């Protein structure tokens, strides 16, 4: 029975904004003007295109984020049951050691990626010249 109330609420919730938009569309005068259709930039006049090509190195950041994100997925269930497992008498070698091995493997990988320069923000020649140009103007 409680579902009926929720359904009614949803119907009313959809109907109110629809009705408001319909009423205002009937009442308002139509004055087409170019400045109305431009992007709102807090009063500034918009310049350039909205399609900006981002630096490809942001992908590297995204990849690293994914790696750590997934690490949390694996650690989270372990963290939830860690205390109760210890209280139930599970030895540390079975409760803590596997997670240490897991994190240890990830650390080896991360250290290696760091040492070969995968996480460094390389400044290409083009980016460097653009930077100096901007400073000069």
């Amino acid at each position, binding site marked *: 029975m409680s579902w009926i109330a929720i359904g009614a609420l949803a119907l009313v919730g959809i109907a109110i904004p629809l009705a408001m938009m319909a009423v205002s569309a009937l009442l308002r005068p139509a004055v087409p003007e170019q400045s109305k259709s431009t992007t709102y930039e807090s009063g500034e006049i918009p310049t350039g295109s909205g399609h900006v090509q981002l630096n490809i190195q942001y992908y590297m950041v995204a990849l690293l984020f*994914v790696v750590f994100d997934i690490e949390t997925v694996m650690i989270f*269930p372990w963290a939830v049951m860690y205390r109760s497992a210890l209280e139930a008498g599970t030895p540390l070698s079975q409760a803590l050691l596997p997670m240490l091995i897991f994190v240890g493997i990830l650390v080896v990988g991360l250290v290696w990626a760091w040492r070969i320069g995968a996480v460094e923000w390389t400044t290409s020649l083009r980016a460097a010249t653009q930077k100096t140009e901007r400073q000069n103007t």
Partner: protein
Amino acid sequence: MVPVEYYLLLSSGLFCIGLFGILTRRNALYFLMSVELMLNAANINLVAFSFYWGNLTGQTFALFAIALAAAEVAVGIGIILALYRNFGDVDVMQAATMRW
């Protein structure tokens, strides 16, 4: 309680949407998203039937499936980046120097 057949319907629908995306899209990034849909269809089944059977096997496996899906995307994006550098496009049909 929602009957268990509904979960099967939902997951099959999701799986078919993903399959449709793979068959129709030529952009490699859309392809990756479609594969994610298909994997998540499997996850829905696993979690729903984990509840139905009353054991946690399905839920645990779903966690691993999520992790593997993310790892797959990481490798995939790496390959797509290399594709873009070599062919100047992320259209999967562009790369056809060898015949099928």
